[in-house]
């Protein structure tokens, strides 16, 4: 066992020394390989993190959301809608919500501005107070402690006392949240006193009746657009799978290129390499030593590429918000103005990724060696 280990160490040393002779070629191979794993791992990390966030967000989402449409575009829902919906049979927790997006020039960030949900007393706010999300706190760190200063879209300065900061959670929704009282909200966005709601949310007493309720609402409020939780879920799924599909298609192209590259590297066993194998055999190396040496070559390159690719993808997705993939996977930004994903990795996916990359590559380097490795070494005498 000890000599087996020592033997493998020598083979690894040899293969590293040999690989260093073709620095450019091997660096290029490593680069292409790592890039492929980087893309693959980025998609996997990004997709699964988004799905997880979406699932968490949906958990708290209302069963039915009602919006008003004017000329086919989203508009504020009139205040009377609230009463009409409250009187509908089967509807519960009917609530008007006021929320909007706001770009803060001072910090260069997008905020989601909202009035506190009526059914959560610990979020209740008096005019002049605010509750902010964790990422906003981080952005403003050290400045105006205890106070949130905002320049409203119409140019008025707002000074709100920070009542508390929301705890840092994995929820996408809360990170960039600014809660303010209804009166402040209306003034902030220059809305009239009688303005209605951005949308109206409700729960349904009996889940099986969602379809019936939707139908009833449409009849009661002909200009309303009704969105169910199932609709949102489907949208998410569609966006994710469609976008992932594009990326995976691109990736399969990259994979084919890589396969050709690997095959070329492997099968293009030059006369020089063949002779080298002959020399090693003549000097007393066994076929198994040659194969082990080549195995280490393939395995080390794969492993290095895997580690570089996965580490790069991890940093890319979780520290740089998937900047490279964002243009392709942009679909989700319709649903969220900005996100910051919580680092987390699915082990099974990683193992799968390792298997579908490391093993084929290592095999691809080994197979063509086989023939050269089993031939008699007397050719080196020629």
């Amino acid at each position, binding site marked *: 066992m000890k000599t087996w280990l020592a033997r493998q160490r020598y083979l690894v040393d040899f293969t590293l020394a040999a690989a260093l002779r073709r620095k450019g070629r091997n660096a290029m191979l490593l680069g292409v390989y790592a890039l492929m794993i980087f893309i693959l791992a980025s998609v996997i990390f990004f997709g699964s993190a988004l799905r997880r966030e979406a699932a968490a967000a949906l958990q708290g989402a209302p069963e039915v959301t009602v919006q008003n449409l004017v000329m086919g575009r989203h508009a504020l829902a009139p205040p009377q809608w609230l009463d009409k919906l409250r009187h509908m049979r089967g509807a519960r927790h009917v609530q008007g919500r006021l929320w909007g997006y706001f770009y803060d020039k001072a910090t260069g960030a997008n905020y989601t501005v909202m009035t506190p949900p009526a059914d959560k007393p610990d979020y209740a706010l008096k005019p002049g107070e605010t509750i902010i999300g964790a990422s906003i706190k981080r952005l403003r760190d050290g400045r105006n402690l205890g106070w949130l200063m905002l320049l409203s879209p119409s140019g008025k300065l707002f000074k709100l006392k920070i009542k508390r900061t929301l705890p840092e959670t994995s929820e996408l929704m809360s990170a960039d949240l600014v809660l303010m009282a209804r009166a402040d909200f209306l003034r902030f966005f220059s809305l009239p006193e009688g303005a209605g709601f951005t949308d109206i949310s409700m729960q349904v007493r009996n889940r099986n009746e969602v379809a019936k309720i939707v139908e009833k609402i449409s009849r009661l409020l002909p200009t309303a657009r009704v969105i169910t939780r199932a609709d949102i879920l489907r949208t998410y799924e569609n966006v994710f799978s469609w976008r992932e599909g594009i990326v995976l298609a691109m990736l399969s192209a990259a994979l084919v290129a890589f396969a050709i590259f690997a095959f070329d590297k492997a099968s293009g066993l030059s006369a020089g390499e063949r002779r080298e194998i002959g020399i090693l055999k003549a000097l007393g190396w066994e076929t198994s*030593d040659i194969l082990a040496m080549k195995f280490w070559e393939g395995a080390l390159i794969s492993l290095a590429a895997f580690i570089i690719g996965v580490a790069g993808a991890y940093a890319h997705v979780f520290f740089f918000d998937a900047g490279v993939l964002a243009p392709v996977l942009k679909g989700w930004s319709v649903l969220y103005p900005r996100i910051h994903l919580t680092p987390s990795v699915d082990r099974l996916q990683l193992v799968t990724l390792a298997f579908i990359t490391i093993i084929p590559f290592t095999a691809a380097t080994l197979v063509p060696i086989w023939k050269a490795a089993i031939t*008699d070494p007397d050719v080196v*005498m020629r």
Partner: protein
Amino acid sequence: MIELNEVTKIYNEGQPNEVVALRDVSLTIPEGRVTVFKGPSGSGKTTLLTLVGCLARPTSGRIRLDGRIISALPEHFMAAVRRETFGFVFQRFNLIRGLSVIENVMIPAYPLGPDYRGLRARAGALLERFQLAHKARMKTEVLSGGESQRVAIARALINDPQWIIADEPTANLDSRLAGQFLDEVRQLKQAGKSIIITSHDERIFNADVVDVVVDMEDGRIATVEER
């Protein structure tokens, strides 16, 4: 002692390009001596060397090393015999390009998995002995012909084999270097090693260090001269 018993080697047997390189060769090669295979080009000297050195198997016939048959061993054992019993100095030296001199010398020991410091020390001592210590870290492709040959000899000796096999060792050397090679052969013989050399070169087969000259012709042994 190596004994060959009616050894025949046919390349590409049964094909149109079939070549009978050796025919019914029977020969005894003594231990602790210097044996030279001579003869015209194509007479089968190199082929005989590859069979003796376990680099290939004969088509028929037996080869024994110290009484043990080595001509029909599985590849795994053949490699072990090569590694432990024979040191090879090839005509074209066959150093591995791009690797350093000392790495080249150590290569035959890798499959044995020896202690690294010990191996390095042995390789260093061999290079010292061949006046190559200062070139240990150089790549082999910058070496001169004579230096390459000495590296090849050092490499052949790293596992301390009983038999040294050299194919046309002086083909590319001038007379000074050929003389140097013969000096090294003399030292090895004094150290008790057995040496087999193929050569056209009369500087070799006329040298006084040579004990046995096997004259070959057309795949057969014409004469065996013991001195």
